[in-house]
């Protein structure tokens, strides 16, 4: 009886292994049959592995070491992270600034891009291009090139556009140092970033809105939709949800990676580190102080912030 049961167990195990090996060999033959597909993918996958996947692994490894390029990396455990979160006041300040920035520009830029795209989709097609160009062009300019304009608008002497007009209107008595005063640095960076925020996401919204089926609106008007905002809320938004998700993912990445605008307008380091974002801190440690291990820890923190926030957004917006 017992031996019989054992035999059954053994038989089952055998079946399982043969099934598994059968699965593996079937997978292998599947792969071999599709080798042309993999050949097409090869260049992308090779470059992607070498410049994206491998760097992630190296970053994680380096973040546990002390490494200054000249000497070999030395394993120091969690010291970098402890230093970051316990001792590095400037890093904590940078996290604060980045989050403050992200929670303003992120949602505001996102809603603004969607509303503008929606308004544009309300007018006849032949006029749309002009407005699209007006709103999209700022996002394709470079922060470096535009600094000539911002420095003039926010200049701290009477010749600055804002200062000149504010003095003339009697709002202020003496010029305000927009780019040096620690209270105005973050607002200025936010304004400039918002100006540049109608980018790829805006185009995705615009394209999605153009392709909402017309009969949905007709059906809606039969069902009692009267006003434009009702149309927007009950018909338009649900039908462009995939584009909304795509735009949100890009927006998270953009609003957590402020670097150019800050460095161009207020410098590195900025006055009292008032414009110091996480990415600026990363650049400072990586390419000015060459403390690669510490900088890698900063990079990993930023990476986790982006992935975490995007996961959250996927969970909120991705549900059907």
């Amino acid at each position, binding site marked *: 009886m017992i031996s019989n049961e054992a035999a059954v167990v053994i038989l089952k195990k055998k079946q399982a292994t043969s099934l598994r090996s059968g699965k593996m060999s079937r997978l292998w033959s599947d792969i071999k049959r599709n080798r042309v597909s993999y050949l097409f993918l090869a260049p992308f996958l090779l470059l*992607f592995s070498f410049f994206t996947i491998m760097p992630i692994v190296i970053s994680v490894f380096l973040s546990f070491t002390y490494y200054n390029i000249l000497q070999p990396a030395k394993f120091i455990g969690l010291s970098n992270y402890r230093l970051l979160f316990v001792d590095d006041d400037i890093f904590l300040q940078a996290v604060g600034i980045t989050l403050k920035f992200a929670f303003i520009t992120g949602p505001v830029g996102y809603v603004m891009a969607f509303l503008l795209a929606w308004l544009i989709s309300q007018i006849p097609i032949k006029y749309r291009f002009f407005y699209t160009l007006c709103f999209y062009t700022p996002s394709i300019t470079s922060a470096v*090139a535009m600094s000539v304009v911002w420095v003039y608008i926010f200049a701290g002497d009477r010749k600055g556009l804002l200062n000149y007009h504010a003095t003339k209107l009697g709002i202020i008595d003496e010029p305000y140092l927009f780019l040096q005063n620690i209270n105005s640095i973050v607002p200025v960076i936010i304004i400039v970033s918002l100006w540049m925020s109608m980018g790829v996401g805006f185009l995705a919204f615009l394209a999605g809105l153009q392709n909402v089926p017309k009969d949905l609106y007709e059906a809606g008007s039969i069902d009692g939709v009267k006003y434009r905002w009702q149309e927007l809320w009950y018909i338009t938004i649900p039908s462009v949800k*995939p*584009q909304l998700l*795509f735009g949100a993912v890009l927006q*998270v990445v953009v609003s957590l990676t402020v670097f150019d605008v800050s460095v161009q307008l207020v410098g590195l380091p900025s006055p009292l580190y008032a414009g110091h974002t996480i990415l600026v801190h*990363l650049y400072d440690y990586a390419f000015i102080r060459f403390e690669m291990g510490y900088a890698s820890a900063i990079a990993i923190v930023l990476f986790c912030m982006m*992935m975490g926030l995007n996961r959250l957004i*996927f969970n909120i917006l991705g549900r059907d």
Partner: protein
Amino acid sequence: MTSTVRSKLRIDYSSLFLYVFLTAFGLLMLAPLVYMASTALKPVSELFLFPPRFFVVNPTLINFRDLLLVTGTSIVPFTRYVLNSLIITSGIVVGGVFISAMAAYPLAKHNMPFKKTIFDMVVAALMFSPLVLQIPQYMLISRTGLMNSYFAMILPYLAAPIGMFLMTQFLRQIPDALLEAARIDGASEWKVFRVIIMPMLKPAIATFALFSFIQAWNDPYPAMVYTTYEDMKSLPLAILTISGGAGVVARVGTFAAASFLMIIPTIIVFVVTQRMVLQTMAHSGLKE
């Protein structure tokens, strides 16, 4: 009768308001660019006027001449930066488009193991900025001995997840019938890709070319990090040099002229590709 007239009037009012708002806001958005163009055309006598003047009164091209002359006497002429930028940008755009298109074809139209895993990986890569990978990328480039070459500034940017994502999504909605017909006629996969897929992908190619052009053209990092030679630097870095550092404007006119020259190509590329861009972005949606 009266009610229809009134409702017509109301609609007209709201449309009028819509146009006024869009136009006013649009012009406000364009104002900084207009100011840049007008500064680039200002003669010295108007650059430092008080009170400051927004528009140029006596336009001149002297700033553009200065840009070529002043930088011409330094070690590296301005045109060299333009050339470097052109080489790097076209390398990234052409190479990136080709590599992404090749990868998108099997992901959208073939059925092979790990297809979903690979696509999910690309979507995950959309969720973070490659800027956090600067350090290891720099190390890989320096270890492979590619420093100070054009390859160093092109290779890391070729496998762009957004290009592959857009092309795959675009290809998915194209019917398979044509591909089947070509395969029955005995065409190889390579031929199907070249003769059928590439022409059909045109809108997606134009879109990705636009995005990657803008990215590569404006990005100062590659030249900042991957080269130490002055004659390998690109346009954005050269403009940084002319500006003289953050918050300082040494030669306003020349700086504005250089910035203006840098922005013009991106606008032209967008105007040329915009129709195809909107066609492609309609398929950019993400789903869980």
